[in-house]
Each structure stands twice: as structure tokens, then as C-alpha cells.
């Protein structure tokens, strides 16, 4: 049996791990780096570049280099977050036939699962080179707040990469697994995950190898890149004041600023001040202009302080959901490169009243946890168990546009819940069951996962027929919904497959296309 890898498919960087000699180990890529940028580009001469190669040419080829596509995956084109990305990203985002956002670079349009698939394929390759054997199965992590569509698209990405995805698990949960491996005793832990593009907080309880997710919460559109953007914004404004030049329309300058901001941010975790030197950033009638700015840690903290405070709001909410007080948390695990920032560490320490756990590498812990989960599933002698939860509430739309929850978020899976509904009109012969996911009480504000009609209800005054709607989530997170007329026993059901995702045929076509491409490259 070939080995199963764990992949942390990150917004900015991805990481792959495998269990070696009973210990989860991160696999370095050919360049010796333990993480690989989640970037994909097409060079001027038509070459497809992934990872570090793509990142290296990003500045000179910004329009044809895709980054942070994880922010788009599984969303609809009209989603405000997608619209925000359109404004911010140098590459072109277009509307796909399924109303999904697609990215156009090098004259070709790519779907988001396809791009994620390219990155996953690269991670698979890294693992195969290291292990000297083919790898076919993986556990992939996603932010806890990913909805069903986003998870489904990530699964499709795995398929495109030629991987069978055993399980999609939440990043903070994975981190907790890596942390909790080989630990005994009862502990309540908080995983604070501030990555490149997302913020997640989870409260877990572990005891004797069983890890139970008590609650999870977060924000899919908040992360390290928002901090970078604040710095870029500040630099642009400062430069406008200083040199009366607006850099906003200059994609190449923006890309250079972005890189410099990220580097300065990282350096400020260790130092109190850094020089940002960008010669020839722009030019005007007076000739070339240079950007020269000293950024202090104090200034940085002033720029991004509210973002960090925002994360703590989510933490508070999550503690309430879990029914745990900050003081009851035994251990805080920090995940994501952004948690290296002294401000974050300070605020988290203040919030929980204890120093965060130091034993794990925030960049690698998620991938390690994914590998642990893979081993947990496949190794019969493994004594660990993850009790995972459903991230968002599930229910149906009811009369008046309301949302009736049947399965509350943070409910441990597998689970089944049912409820009896009735008709709203006399002699109503059919009802439409609209399966929704989300936290709003207004049906329209939640995501529609699927719908079906139960017909053949015997004529009766409104409110009389009894229609039992049951939700079932199995251990793999597959949702199925059934509706049964209790009077006639007539039943209708669906297994939810998200709308807008790729069909099997489309996936097959993409795989073939990429196989073809690989052959071309080698030939």
C-alpha cells in the first residue's frame, strides 16, 4: 500500500507531510524549502510555473501569475469577496459558465479548483520525489470556516491533481492533532490560526487520544495579506504625499511594494525598525523616483492593531460557543506564519492569561496534523480518534423566507436530526425542500446546497399534513436530506452536491489537458 500524505493547502504557502517511523515529518521540496508558495504562473514563453519558480517571476510577470486563489475557490462570481479580489489582484478574474470566478492568464482561462489542483499536483510531486514512490491518497486541510461548496471544490482540486482525497479536515483541527499526538491526559486547547489569507480559532478537548472539536469560528477573509495590504496602502499614501506620485495604477510597482511590505513585516518580528528601499519604483518628468522609508514596529502595530483586535472578537465568540472560559483553556497553540508577529503573541497571551505553546512550528503544524489524520484513518493500530464537527448550520428554507436549522454548527459528525414540518395552504399537493447552509435566520442569506420537491401529498387543510425532514451527515461529511410524508409514507431525498462545482467530465478533461501538458514539457 502506498503512503498517504497530508497537505496544508494554504493561501500563500502550501506544505506536505507524511508519517515516517511513526512520526509526522514535513517533506522539503527540491530547493530545500519546507513550504512551497501556492502560486502558479505562465511565463512569457508559455511555460507553466508552480511554487518558487512562479513566485520568482511574479514581479516581472504580475498579470500572468496567480496567487491567493484560495480566496476565490468555491465562491460565486458575485460574492463580495470575489469582487474585492477583482479590485486588488493584478491578474484577470472572469465569470465562468457556472457563475464561478475563473482566472485568465497567458490567454487561457483556469477554474479555481484547477489552480488549486496544480498546486496540489506540485505538492504530490514533492512527496513522490522524497519518498521515491507514487502517492495516490491525501488528507487535505481547509480553513474551518469553509462551507460545503468550498470543501467540495478543494476535493475536486485533489482529483485534478490525481489524488484521492480521504478526508478534508479543518486546519486548526489538524494543528491540534499534531500537537496532541503522543500526549495523554485531559486538556482543553485553543488553536489560534492566523495564516496568509484566513483566520480561524478552534477550541478542542482532548483526552487519551480522542480529540473533540468543541467549537470553531473565524473569518475566511482575514489574514497576513491584509496586514501586507495595510502596509502597501500606507506606503502608497506616504509616497503620494512625499513624491506626489500615485502608484495605484502601476501593477509592477504594486507587486514590488507588496513583496517589500511582506518582507518588512516578517523582519519586524525580530527587529524594531526596518528600511524599505525600492529604487526606481516609478518615474515621472523629473526622471526615476526611489522609495525610501523606515517602518518601525510601533508604526506597524498602529496600522494593523484593529485587525488583531478583530481576531480576538472571534475568539471570544468561539469560547462562548464551546462553553469554555479563557481561563479554562490549558494550552494555546499558534498556527500560521502571521502568529510570529510580536503583537499577535502579546495580545493572545493577554487574552488567555498564559503564554502560547512553543513546541510547534506554525508553518508546518497543519500539514503534520493532516498526516496524523491520514495515519489515524488507515492504521488499525493507531489509538487516536478525531471527533470532527460540521462547520456551519444546516437546515431548510421555510414559509416567509426563514431558515429552520436542523443541524447546529459545531455538531459532531456523523449525526442525524429530523423535524416535522407542514403545509402552508389548503390542499397543497407538494412542498419544495430547499437545503441551506449558513448562520443567518434569513433563508436568502445562506448558501443553497440543493433542493427537491416532495409531491403527492394528500389534499388536506393547511397545517394538517406532517412532513418529516431528516438531515444526515455521515463520517465523511456527506450530507443527505430526505423528506417523508408521514401519512402516505412517500419519500424524496437528495445527497447534497454543491452547486457550481465541476462535473466529473470537466474534471476528466482538465486532468487530460494537464497530462498532455506534462508530456509536452518533457518532450
Amino acid at each position, binding site marked *: 500500500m502506498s503512503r498517504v500524505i497530508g497537505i496544508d493547502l494554504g493561501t500563500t504557502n502550501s506544505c506536505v507531510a507524511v508519517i515516517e517511523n511513526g512520526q509526522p515529518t514535513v517533506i522539503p521540496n527540491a530547493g530545500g524549502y519546507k513550504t512551497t508558495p501556492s502560486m502558479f504562473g505562465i511565463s512569457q514563453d508559455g511555460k507553466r510555473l508552480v511554487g518558487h519558480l512562479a513566485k520568482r517571476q511574479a514581479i516581472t510577470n504580475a498579470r500572468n501569475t496567480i496567487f491567493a486563489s484560495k480566496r476565490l475557490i468555491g465562491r460565486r462570481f458575485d460574492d463580495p469577496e470575489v469582487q474585492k479580489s477583482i479590485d486588488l489582484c493584478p491578474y484577470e478574474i472572469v465569470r465562468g459558465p457556472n457563475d464561478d470566478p475563473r482566472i485568465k492568464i497567458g490567454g487561457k482561462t483556469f477554474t479555481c479548483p484547477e489552480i488549486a489542483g496544480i498546486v496540489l499536483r506540485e505538492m504530490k510531486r514533492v512527496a513522490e520525489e522524497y519518498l521515491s514512490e507514487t502517492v495516490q491518497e491525501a488528507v487535505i486541510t481547509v480553513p474551518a470556516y469553509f462551507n460545503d461548496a468550498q470543501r467540495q471544490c478543494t476535493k475536486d482540486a485533489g482529483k485534478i491533481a490525481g489524488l484521492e482525497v480521504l478526508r478534508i479536515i479543518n486546519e486548526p483541527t489538524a494543528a491540534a492533532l499534531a500537537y496532541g499526538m503522543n500526549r495523554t491526559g485531559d486538556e482543553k486547547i485553543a488553536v489560534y490560526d492566523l495564516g496568509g489569507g484566513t483566520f480561524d480559532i478552534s477550541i478542542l478537548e482532548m483526552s*487519551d487520544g480522542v480529540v*473533540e472539536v468543541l467549537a470553531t469560528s473565524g473569518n475566511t477573509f482575514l489574514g497576513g495579506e491584509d496586514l501586507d495590504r495595510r502596509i502597501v496602502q500606507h506606503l502608497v499614501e506616504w509616497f503620494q504625499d512625499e513624491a506626489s506620485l500615485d502608484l495605484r495604477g502601476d501593477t509592477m510597482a504594486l507587486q514590488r511594494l507588496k513583496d517589500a511590505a511582506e518582507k518588512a513585516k516578517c523582519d519586524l518580528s525580530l527587529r524594531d525598525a526596518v528600511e524599505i528601499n525600492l529604487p526606481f519604483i516609478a518615474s515621472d518628468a523629473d526622471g526615476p523616483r526611489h522609495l525610501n522609508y523606515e517602518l518601525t514596529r510601533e508604526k506597524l502595530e498602529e496600522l494593523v492593531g484593529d485587525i488583531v483586535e478583530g481576531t480576538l472578537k472571534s475568539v471570544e465568540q468561539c469560547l462562548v460557543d464551546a462553553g469554555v472560559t479563557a481561563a479554562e483553556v490549558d494550552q494555546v497553540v499558534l498556527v500560521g506564519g502571521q502568529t510570529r508577529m510580536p503583537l499577535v503573541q502579546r495580545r493572545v497571551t493577554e487574552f488567555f492569561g498564559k503564554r502560547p505553546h512553543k513546541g510547534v512550528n506554525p508553518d508546518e503544524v497543519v500539514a503534520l496534523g493532516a498526516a496524523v489524520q491520514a495515519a489515524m484513518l488507515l492504521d488499525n493500530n493507531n489509538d487516536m*480518534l478525531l*471527533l470532527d464537527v460540521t462547520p456551519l448550520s444546516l437546515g431548510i428554507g421555510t414559509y*416567509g423566507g426563514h431558515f429552520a436549522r436542523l443541524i*447546529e454548527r459545531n455538531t459532531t459528525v456523523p449525526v442525524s436530526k429530523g423535524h416535522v414540518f407542514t403545509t402552508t395552504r389548503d390542499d397543497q399537493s*407538494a412542498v419544495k425542500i430547499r437545503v441551506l447552509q449558513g448562520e443567518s435566520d434569513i433563508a*436568502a442569506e445562506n448558501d443553497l446546497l440543493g433542493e427537491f*420537491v416532495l409531491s403527492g401529498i394528500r389534499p388536506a387543510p393547511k397545517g394538517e399534513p406532517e412532513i418529516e425532514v431528516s438531515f444526515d451527515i455521515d463520517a465523511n461529511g456527506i450530507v443527505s436530506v430526505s423528506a417523508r410524508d408521514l401519512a402516505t409514507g412517500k419519500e424524496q431525498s437528495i445527497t447534497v452536491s454543491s452547486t457550481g462545482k465541476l462535473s466529473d467530465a470537466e474534471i476528466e478533461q482538465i486532468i487530460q489537458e494537464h497530462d498532455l501538458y506534462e508530456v509536452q514539457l518533457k518532450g
Partner: protein
Amino acid sequence: MACPIAIASGHDPTQLRLSAAEGYLLSRIDGRTPWRLLREIGGIPAADVDACLERWLDQGIVEVVGGGAAGGRPAAVDAASAPPVVTTTIPIDASLLDPALDIDCTVQRRILEFELSLSRPYHELLGVPAGADPKAVKRAYFKLSKEFHPDRYFRREIGPFAQRLERIFKKVLEAHEILSDPDLRQVANQSEAAVAEAVDVVRSETAPSSATGASDSGPSSSGAAHPVAASTNPASVPSATTGARPSGASTTAKGEPPATSAQSVSSEGPEPASVAPAKVDARTQERLSKLERLKQRMPFKIDQTALAARRARAREIFQAAEASLSAGRFNEAEASIRIAITFDPSRAEYKEALGALRIRAAGDRAAKLLETPSDRMSAAELRDVLDLIEDVLPYRPHDAELNLRAAKVCLQLGRHDEAVEYVETLLETDPDRASHHSLLGRIELARGDGAAARRAFEKALSIDREDLDARRSLASMRIAAHDAARGGRR
């Protein structure tokens, strides 16, 4: 060993206030049927038979024929008076074990056993004491999760056990969810108590005469409570959904119904049947805490008024059934009783009445059957009659008339072995009737066993010197023997 039970002389059983079940049991007491057999044919669990008989013995209503005071009850099955419902060893269907699966047979056995006991109260399911603290509940939950979570057998070929594990885990999860929340736990306890109480009420209504009976049936009453209390879906508690509907709760419709409906069917979403009326204001609803929502979905929400309404309706229908019964319209009565049962399935009386009715109907048919003497029937008719008797007999296994008729018909049809069986049943319950012995003699004769026939006839004559049948037969046997002897000499 066989010690028949009889109604004590001087007692008029019709004066006793008995439930239908007890009445039926009493009707089986005929001075011939032994205790052991009563357990099997009493129509109620063996333990209940024992309890009833003990009680009646104490009260002097019944007595053991020819035996001492303590001789009646066979000791072998004494253990049966222990709680019959949930014991630690649950008999599982061993045919469900499949050694071909990628899961150990002992584990399979454990899964099957656990699955059969899912209806226990939550704390028993988790194996913690009734008032266990949240920490102990959590530990037990983790332990069982480690054992039964489907992920433990990920990708392994475990066939139908995958679904079993899922069922078990969901139940364990539910138990943990309820027990770890003090409020939900309280609701659950109350409902469990309410259900138990309801069952007790039914029990005491059906058996008002004795406190012993009620306490004896304690364990089985908690067993009966579970199909209601332990159902995963609140919807499957009929009482929770009927009559509890807040009509027009969400009729103040704001927002438009879903626009996209190509179907010609009416496409409005269904209205929640028992979701809180608070739906009116979305903002308020948003504040509705997790606890509140959970409470609403509690499987234990038993609407007592709705329950009472259903019970009353069931009683009405049952009374109608009794009226049809006394008018002799059995089919109608049976239909009515069935409806009554659907309205109030917890009430054992109705089910017993249904059983009694079937027996009575069988008796009725049997009586009609016996009107025509069988000697005038054709072979086909005889076979029909035998079929009918075999239908009826399970309900009245000791009916002398039926057994007698069956024996005669079998004799006529030449099915001698069966005929002998019927006669032997007759003789078991009534060994001192000459006519039965002479019938046996006739059968043996037809079978060609002269010696056995002679013994039977002689026995008949020893009981009744005047038994015509036996005398004639013996005489003709003697003549036949005489003729044979003479013929032989010739």
C-alpha cells in the same frame, strides 16, 4: 412433576376485577393445565404468568391440584422472575456474524450486543451512574467513541457493520449531548419519568387489583417506555407533533417566497410545524440561544394534552369495538380495535383484547364447524375441515371437542398417526374418559395394531363398563379372532 392449577372451589372468578390479560390467563386455568404449560399459553410473558399465579395462590383464588402449597411452581425457571428486559447478556442473532469481514468476530458480537441495547436510558447507555458529573460523562463518551466511531474502521470491509457503527455512534453522541447539558438532562429526566409514569398509569388501570403485579412489571414498563423516549427524531413521537402546532405562527410573512419555481406544483416552503412562534421577528430569533433550539428539538417533548386526547379517542373507539363485539360483528370489532391501538399503542389492554377477539372468532368458527357431523362429509370436505381445525387449534389447544373432531376426521382420512396425536392430547387433559380410550382403540385397530387396540378398549371398559363402542369393538375383535383361529385350523 406436572401439577395442574385449578380455580379454588367456592370462588367465583367472574367477581374478580381483572385485566384482559389476566382474564385470559384465568380462562386457561381448567384444573388440568399445569403451571409450566400456563407459562407458554398464558398469552403474557412467563414472568407475568408467575406473578399472577403466585398472587392468586396467595389470595386463595386458585390452588394446585393434588399438590402441596408450594408444589405448583416449577423451580427450573425461577430465574425468569428476574427482570426480563435488559440483562447483561443479550441474545444476538449469531447468523449476523460474518467471519469474512475485516472486523473481529468478538468485536462484531460486541457491536451487535450494543446495538440491541441502544434503547436503554442515556446514562445506562454510556455506562455511568444516573447523576454522573459532566467529566465522567465525557470520559465515557470518549471511550465509547473510540470503540464505535466509524472512522475506526475507515476503508475496511465491514459490510453492514458500517451502518451499525454509525447508528451506535449517533446514539452515543445524543446521550452525551443530553447528559452533558444540565438543562437538557433535566428535561430528559422529566420526560423519562413522565413516560414511565404514563406506562405505570396504563399498567395500574389494567391491573388495579394488585400492587405486587405493578411492581413486578416494573422493569418491563421501563422497557416499554423506550421506543418513545429514545427515538432519535422528535418527529417519531406522535404525541409531540399532533395538536402542538402553533397554527398561524409564521403567517406574518415577510420576505418573498422562493422565486425560482418552474414547477407547476405549489412551491412554497413548508412551514415549521412546531418551531417556536418567535419566528416572526428574525432579530429576536437570532438571539434564541443554542439551548433553546436544542430544547425545541428534544425528542422528549411530550405534549400531555395531545397525549390525553389521543388516549381518549382510543378509548372511544375501543368502546365502539366492544359494542360491535357484543353484537357479534367480529370483523368490525377487530378493525376498531386495530384503530384504537394506533391511537394509543402503549395500552396493552387493546392488544390483549385483539388477541382475545381472534381466539373468540376462532372458537366461533370452530363451533360452526362442529355443527355438521363429519361422517357425512366427502374426503375433500374432510380435508377442509381438518385445515380449519388446524387453524383454530393454536388458539384453543385444549379444546376437547376440536381435538376429538380432529382425531375423528384424521381417522376417516386414514391419517392414523395424526389421529393418535390428537387423541393423546385429549387424554393428557382428561385421562378418565372412556369414549376417548375407545376412540384410540378404533384408531389402533384401523392401524392394524390389534394388541394396542385391545388395551385401549379394555381401559375404556375399566372406566365405564357401559361404553358401547368399546364393548362392541372388543366383541367383534373376539369374533374376528375366533374366525381367524377357526379358518386357520381349516
